[in-house]
């Protein structure tokens, strides 16, 4: 049991010891180890996305009473790989009037920002790349950088649909950033720390979802909007804006946007389970990282379920919902938490 629990941390320690044994200096060993960790993260992200795309197709198929992909491999599980190969073979088109620099940087930036989130997101007990005392602040601020990438893509494409999608993305993400941050504030007030490891450790006896139910609901709604997922998939809005900021993108550039969206999805769900659902705490028959991912996948499934059931909301109602409902409610939750802390502590 201990071996599985410490599989990744033990492996890291072993590699570190090995590098020291090679008489490398300490700092170099640490840098190499960090590099290897990033490689692992990127690998996990890519495998995750391949699974998730297949899963989403399968689940949307079952929701819509059809089979979903079922030709390639058992249950169609190689469909995503085939699609990736197809996307790689596609012609890479850059529109003549596009702002080439922005157009090329945007997808790369989107994916880099998405992967950066994993620097602080816990994947299991002691399984964080960096565990520093402002990790939650880091998460929130980096998550909002993705908006910039979308806007760059939309502006750089020199296409009206792209620009409209990009403007919507900016408006929506900035408005939902506020309730997202406020909803996490309640948890921070209880633990008194912005560090993920401490927040999870504080949930040993009771999950924060029971102490902060309102915060959880506002977080979940705001996260849906942050992720551009239905019913808040305004920026993409396939039926209206053709594909929003992605309209002019083809092949792998387009795939990078897609990859980043799913990467964000996993990060937000990991975060959700870490902050509200006890993180790696769970019955001991499974290792901590397994619990982390089981909880995260549960939320991913809920996101899928919501997306494939609800229609898209209208832009103005979306903004109203954020500023007139979510922001006051999450602020009220902060007040309520403060009063509660005064009374019970």
């Amino acid at each position, binding site marked *: 049991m201990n071996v599985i629990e410490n599989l990744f941390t033990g492996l890291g320690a072993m590699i570190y010891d090995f590098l020291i044994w090679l008489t490398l200096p300490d700092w170099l060993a640490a840098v190499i180890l960090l590099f290897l960790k990033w490689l692992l993260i990127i690998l996990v992200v890519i495998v995750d996305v391949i699974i998730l795309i297949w899963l989403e197709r399968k689940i949307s198929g079952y929701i819509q009473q059809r089979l979903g992909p079922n030709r390639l491999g058992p249950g169609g599980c190689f469909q995503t790989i085939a699609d990736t190969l197809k996307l790689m073979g596609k012609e890479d088109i850059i529109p003549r009037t596009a702002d080439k620099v922005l157009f090329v940087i945007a997808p790369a930036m989107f994916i880099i920002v998405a992967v950066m989130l994993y620097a602080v997101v816990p994947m299991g007990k002691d399984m964080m790349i960096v565990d520093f005392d402002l990790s939650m602040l880091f998460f929130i601020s980096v998550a909002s950088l993705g908006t910039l990438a979308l806007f760059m893509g939309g502006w750089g494409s020199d296409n009206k649909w792209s620009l409209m999608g990009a403007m919507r993305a900016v408006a929506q993400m900035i408005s939902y950033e506020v309730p997202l941050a406020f909803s996490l504030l309640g948890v921070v007030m209880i633990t008194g720390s912005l560090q993920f490891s401490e927040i999870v450790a504080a949930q040993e006896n009771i999950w924060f979802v029971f102490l902060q139910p309102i915060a959880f609901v506002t977080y979940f709604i705001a996260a849906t909007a942050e992720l551009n997922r239905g019913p808040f998939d305004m920026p993409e809005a396939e039926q209206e804006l053709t594909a929003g900021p992605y309209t002019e993108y083809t092949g792998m550039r387009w795939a990078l946007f897609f990859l980043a969206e799913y990467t964000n999805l996993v990060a937000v769900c990991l975060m959700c389970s870490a902050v509200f659902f006890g993180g790696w705490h769970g019955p001991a028959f499974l290792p901590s990282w397994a619990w982390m991912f089981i909880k995260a996948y549960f939320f991913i499934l809920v996101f899928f379920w919501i997306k494939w059931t609800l*229609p898209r909301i209208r832009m103005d109602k979306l903004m109203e919902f954020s500023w007139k409902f979510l922001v006051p409610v999450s602020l009220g939750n902060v007040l309520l938490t403060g009063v509660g802390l005064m009374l019970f502590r």
Partner: protein
Amino acid sequence: MITSEKYVLNMGPQHPSTHGGMHLETIMDGEFIDDVIVHLGYDHRSVEKIAESRTYIQFIPYASRLDYLSSNLPTMAYCQAVEKLMQIEVPERAEYIRVIMGELNRIASHLLFVGSLCQDVGATTGLAYCMREREKILNLIEMTGGQRMLSSYMRIGGVSDDLPPEFFPAVKAFLDGVPNMLKEFNGLISGNEILQGRLKDVGVISKEEAIAWSLSGPNLRAAGVPYDIRKEEPYGIYDRFDFEIPTADYCDCWNRYLMRIEEMEQSARIVRQALEGLPEGEFRTKIPRILKPEKGAEVYYRIEGAKGELGFYILSDGTEKPKRLHVRAPSFINLMVLPIISKGERFQDLICNIATLDPVLGECDR
């Protein structure tokens, strides 16, 4: 001082929500629509001109390509127009079969309306559910005419063949499922607050304007005018059936949607009555091989199509081919109010407006 410029956003002819080849030149003020200019003609096959070089019987398949989502209704209208022109009597059984197939096709068309509306507002699951139900009707149509969508089952003087024996249990199974289906739609689609938020108070047209722009079909009835040719001027044997004309008093997208849902129920009611009253007998009268109406004979015949008042005008010059054939296409006339109802609304509302006006481009362009 911040100033803004109006800009032109070309929606279509390749766009997911134009329901076919249609080009909307939208003049936008930010996210708001200032004007919409509808450009049609991408689906133009000169059906009316083709009619002048085909005999009366040969034109039937072309008629089914008009409103291809409810092909039995335009073919029925055309056949009945020629029958009126030639004074051909249609056997009782054929009349009943025509009503059954026509109403089933009306349900199929409305199902696709609901489905494509769901698709346009982003609820793809609604589309899948509607398609599942429509599939049952397409199977029924396949049993009768052999074709699933572009059926030429209607013939001058009757229908092409008798209803096959396996049709009756299948249609009964479908009709038994209709209340359940509508209940499911009301739960999944109508009961959804986001959908209501998207459709209510969007694309409003007043009763007077609706009449002035000669809207017809469910779009007009949503404005509170109980005008349905099946009641107003009963053609065929529609005066024998007991059914209601659903109306609403406020023509916004929401009521236009509700009209379709309620009409499906009424159509199912008509089919049930027609199946009960289905008499034995011939399914087609003998007609001459070559139809030659007398010179100068003309007819305008209209029925209540799935989209509205569907009319055929035929002028004969005494030969076996019509001199002129004109189609009064409800989709085309309904679509003309799009700029009026969309003005000042958001771009997202334009999508709902197109979907709820329910144009079929095959019929618009002809």
